């Protein structure tokens, strides 16, 4: 299939491009930019005047709910939601049911995703068996069957020696580790940020120190083992500072922040709105400012979705008894654009943090539209307003806290390997 996207504003941070230029695609790859090659006749032309053309977004850590209870979502619903949000690749988290700690599960996910032909799925495997934090998983096998990294999610590895062995073993195969730093003891039953608000609401809280202590422990082991670690979903100012210092010292660490922590603060939970119960908890305005600064400076090179779809009932409970998490895949772009609108980051920076940044963090050969690259592309309209409601959303998740709100910015086309797999 030959295709031309003409008249769009191409933003490709990897090539430092931000200009109106045509893209010509053949055999699923970018064939040329600008002038069409001699004799090239597209079978379809996408008229992209007024649209931004960007590398398809890549997410680190969305939950695609398969295998697992289908009422919370499944590969069909969530990879479709991904496309609607501009994502062409999802590095999905391993705490499925059963969890992604065997090649069989990886194969099952990859086969189904391929058959669906929607967003590409690149699983992140479990770092320990059953994510239990005691025995190493078959990391080499997981890598061989297609896992792009391993993680233990937020499940504690209390024994520091086990953690060190995990890192040593992963680094043997140059396998990346995605780590969500948190001291499980300090977290305890906590569900909101420690501070005056938690005190007034009488909710058990998680101090910012839980993240800093978890992070500090891992930074020391990285120096010991040389493992490549990407830190996910940082939530505190102190963590951003620690990552910046580690990067200055030359450690090979990258980090992301999820969209909710860039947009919201703990204020949202006043009134016990369980839609804003997320892990780690929403933090203070000062933390949010530091996270935004980190995204601007590049200390945080990726913005993740932390997409965690739930059925309606999961949130219909008193705050701490509700299930944590937010559905986000279809609102990340609009919310990211609100940061651009407020001049917190630039549009090319937003595109970079959603595509090139995550690709580099996990060592993926994607996230760019240079010649020869897979034509994974999204086209979006920055000023397209839409209301977050049924009919607009494809995720099975009912837990979009923005329901009823009108947002600005929407994906109009998504291409995977040169095929138009989503259009609005």
């Amino acid at each position, binding site marked *: 299939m030959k295709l031309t996207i003409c008249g769009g504003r191409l933003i490709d941070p990897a090539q430092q491009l931000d200009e109106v230029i045509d893209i010509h695609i053949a055999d699923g790859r970018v064939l040329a930019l600008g002038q069409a090659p001699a004799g090239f006749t597209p079978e379809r032309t996408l008229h992209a005047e007024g649209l931004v053309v960007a590398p398809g977004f890549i997410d680190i850590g969305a939950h695609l709910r398969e295998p697992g209870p289908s009422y919370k979502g499944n590969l069909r619903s969530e990879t479709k939601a991904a496309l609607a949000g501009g994502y062409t690749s999802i590095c999905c988290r391993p705490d499925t049911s059963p969890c992604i700690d065997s090649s069989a599960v990886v194969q099952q996910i990859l086969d189904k995703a391929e058959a669906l032909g929607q967003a590409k799925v690149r699983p992140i495997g479990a770092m320990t068996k059953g994510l239990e934090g005691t025995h190493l998983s078959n990391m080499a096998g997981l890598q061989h069957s297609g896992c792009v990294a391993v993680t233990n999610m937020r499940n504690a590895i209390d024994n520091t020696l086990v953690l060190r062995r995990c890192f040593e073993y992963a680094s043997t195969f140059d396998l990346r580790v995605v780590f969500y730093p948190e001291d499980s003891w300090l977290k305890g039953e906590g569900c909101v940020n420690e501070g005056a608000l938690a*005190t*007034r609401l009488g*909710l058990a809280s998680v101090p910012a120190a839980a993240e800093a202590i978890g992070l500090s422990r891992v930074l020391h082991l990285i120096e010991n083992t040389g493992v490549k670690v990407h830190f996910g979903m940082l939530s505190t100012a102190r963590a951003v500072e620690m990552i910046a210092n580690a990067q200055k010292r030359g450690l090979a660490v990258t980090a992301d922040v999820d969209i909710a922590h860039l947009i919201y603060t703990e204020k949202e939970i006043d*009134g016990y709105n369980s839609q804003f119960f997320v892990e780690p908890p929403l933090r203070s305005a000062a933390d949010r400012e530091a996270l935004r600064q980190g995204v601007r400076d590049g200390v945080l090179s990726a913005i993740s979705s932390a997409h965690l779809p739930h059925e309606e009932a999961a949130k219909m*409970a*008193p705050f*701490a008894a509700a299930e944590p998490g937010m559905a986000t895949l279809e609102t990340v772009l609009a919310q990211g654009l609100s940061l651009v609108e407020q001049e917190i980051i630039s549009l090319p920076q937003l595109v970079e943090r959603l595509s090139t940044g995550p690709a580099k963090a996990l060592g993926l050969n994607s996230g760019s539209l240079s010649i020869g690259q897979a034509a994974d592309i999204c086209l979006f309209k920055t000023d397209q307003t839409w209301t977050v409601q049924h009919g607009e959303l494809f995720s099975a998740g009912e837990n979009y806290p923005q329901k009823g*709100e009108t947002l600005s910015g929407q994906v109009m086309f998504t291409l995977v390997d040169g095929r138009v797999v989503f259009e609005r």
Partner: protein
Amino acid sequence: MTSVTHSSTDPRTVQLTEDGKLRHFLTIGGLNKAILEEILDTADSFVNMGEQSVKKVPLLRGKTVVNLFFENSTRTRSTFELAAKRLSADVLNLDISKSATAKGETLKDTLQNLEAMGSDMFVIRHADSGAQHFIASQVTPNVAIINAGDGRHAHPTQAMLDMYTIRKHKGDFSKLKVAIVGDILHSRVARSQVQALNMLGAQEVRLIGPKTLLPATFAEMGAKLYTRMEDGLKDVDVVIMLRLQKERMDGALLPSEGEFYRLYGLTTEKLNYARPDAIVMHPGPINRGVEIESAVADGPQSLILNQVSYGIAIRMAVMSMAISGQTQQKVQQQLSAQQSEDDNEEASA
């Protein structure tokens, strides 16, 4: 991007009708001095009923009050039951901790079933902070919610009966220094008391305890924090002792019962730090020899038993005010529904 609205669960609005009357009673936060004083004044009219031969008024006649206790409490439940019966309501007591949730029924299902039975008021105790806010956001306009204690968050009727006790025995709040002592961290009573005392204009609110039970963040609720009884009790007019739960006496929060009593137990000797006419209160049930000496609990400055009888009057006041606010709101809604129907008819005619 528009901002998120919390109209359904916001404690600042959910408790009041459009014209500012009490509709649910969930927490002291978000209320105002006028409403708190109205509660105290209304309770005043009920407080001597226990001594009358006919202990009933017909304010809640024909109404059904359901006591929904997801956490066990014989004492609080009994005072609510008595209060409802003195208002002539029909009362249903449900011990949910043993029935519905054990069968896997969700909270929402339980509520819908009870609503279908034509309940007018739920008196609820729940172990999760904010549970009553959630419930208030889910029920129909026909039901009023009274919070009988949620997690660590609030116990507003207890706080109001304490305010009643203080006003009755000490008078003007603006001249009073009040100290609350013990396990502040886990106490919904302390949180509600601090809010009520500040709203009523108390001169000074003090919290006393070891730092494991008294996080610094309590200062932002409008209280001065003390770690030594000698400093915290100095010149206070009111001493409120809190109950220390058995399971918190040993372990990482406190080294031992004995050390706690030695440092924070209210003994005759420590009571001497306070003003000579200071009153002593406790939400009960008391642990003699753990947080309070028997000689103090039973002594002339103690008002612990008065608190219990005032508690019935306060609960009657809150229940009658909430039912009246609820009825008023329902009438208004019906009127406005009628109005819009009429408008539609006019428009179509």
